[in-house]
């Protein structure tokens, strides 16, 4: 696998949320607006890149039998760094993400990449993989939050599209912002992914 493939595989082909179904909690909980989704995606990417780099650098010195606790401590350290940075520089984002910033620690994407990739490959490959996966996670979060924000408030990234076009009256359904809307959006997006897969399999099978 060359470096470019390694970088882009996380975007769609092995998208952590939409294909591998990892990191579902944050991708449902914080995706009430694109701003939150983007913020969470970027915070997780930063943690992922940091921890993958460090794990990959230390892979020769980490004893196999206690590697998981060591990975968790490394990840928790980067989460604390990001948490304090957000509190200091972007307090509004820190407030709206709230509990889910410390919970990046238990996001299975990050531990999964440390275990499956960074602890085996070179530092450069691990960084490329981490950035790619992080972007894939961010893409998924932005996609889910765009659907929810639009259906829930009629706005995209805070801009009320319909009102800007001069159409009044579409206020959206608050249900999409509330928990049921999160589950519904996720179900429909995963259903679409599956539909696409089934369709492709049928096309190649027919030839």
């Amino acid at each position, binding site marked *: 696998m060359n470096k470019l493939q390694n970088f882009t595989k996380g975007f769609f082909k092995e998208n952590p949320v939409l294909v591998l*179904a*990892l990191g*579902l*909690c944050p991708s*449902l*909980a914080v995706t009430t607006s694109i701003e939150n989704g983007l913020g969470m995606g970027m915070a997780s990417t930063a943690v992922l890149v940091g921890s993958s780099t460090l794990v990959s650098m230390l892979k020769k010195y980490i004893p196999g039998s206690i590697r*998981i*606790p060591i990975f*968790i*401590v490394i990840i*928790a*350290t980067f*989460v*604390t760094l990001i*948490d*304090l940075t957000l509190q200091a520089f972007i307090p509004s984002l820190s407030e709206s993400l709230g*509990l889910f910033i*410390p*919970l990046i*620690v*238990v*996001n*299975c994407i990050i*531990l999964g990449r440390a275990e499956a990739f960074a602890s085996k490959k070179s530092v450069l490959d691990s960084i490329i993989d981490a950035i790619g996966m992080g972007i894939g996670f961010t893409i998924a979060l932005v996609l889910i939050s765009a659907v929810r924000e639009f259906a829930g408030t009629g706005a995209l990234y805070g801009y009320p599209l319909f009102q800007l076009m001069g159409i009044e009256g579409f206020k959206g359904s608050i*249900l999409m912002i*509330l*928990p*049921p*809307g*999160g*589950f*519904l959006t*996720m*179900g*429909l997006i*995963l*259903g*679409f992914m*599956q*539909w696409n897969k*089934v369709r492709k399999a049928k096309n190649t099978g027919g030839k």
Partner: protein
Amino acid sequence: MDFSHLVVIAVSSIFINNFVLGRFLGICPFIGVSKKIDSALGMGMAVIFVMTLASVVTYLIQTFVLVRFELQYLQTIAFILVIASLVQFIEMFMKKNMPALYQSLGVFLPLITTNCAVLGVAILNIDATWADGSHYNFIESTWNGFTAGIGFTIALLLMAGIRERLELADIPESMKGTPITFISASLIAMAFLGFSGMSIM
């Protein structure tokens, strides 16, 4: 000791802010272990057990170590380490002393370390405040951990019951498996939304 507080905590964490359906904590086991009612019950019991103990231990760590030595910024690292070692310890203890219980709950224990509901309840216990600005005390924290575990188990059992029926239902091919599970979860969450109108504070 104010007993009305305990009632408020129980109703709130089981129904109004159900961990899975209202707060989106612990979605991975909710989707992953809800295929059979038996395994859902086993997972639920293991989560209740670990959440209660984690609430006890993290409350003590917070009060007597982190606050005492002004190390609150180490909260995330300290809590996740404590929870991971607690789960490991429970597993070893059960294997040695309660083999029958280990047979039924043992397989779920390693999965719990990465269940965000456990770390979530530990942090919520510390962050939560009453109307007068006071924090949860030791008993309230423990009770919150226990009832949050019960709320998780109820959600998991409801889902497992529905999924056992879904096995036999005629579902469009592209919605089979995880997608239809999320749609069902959405409908359950909608029903639980009805509780949010209750004001008991």
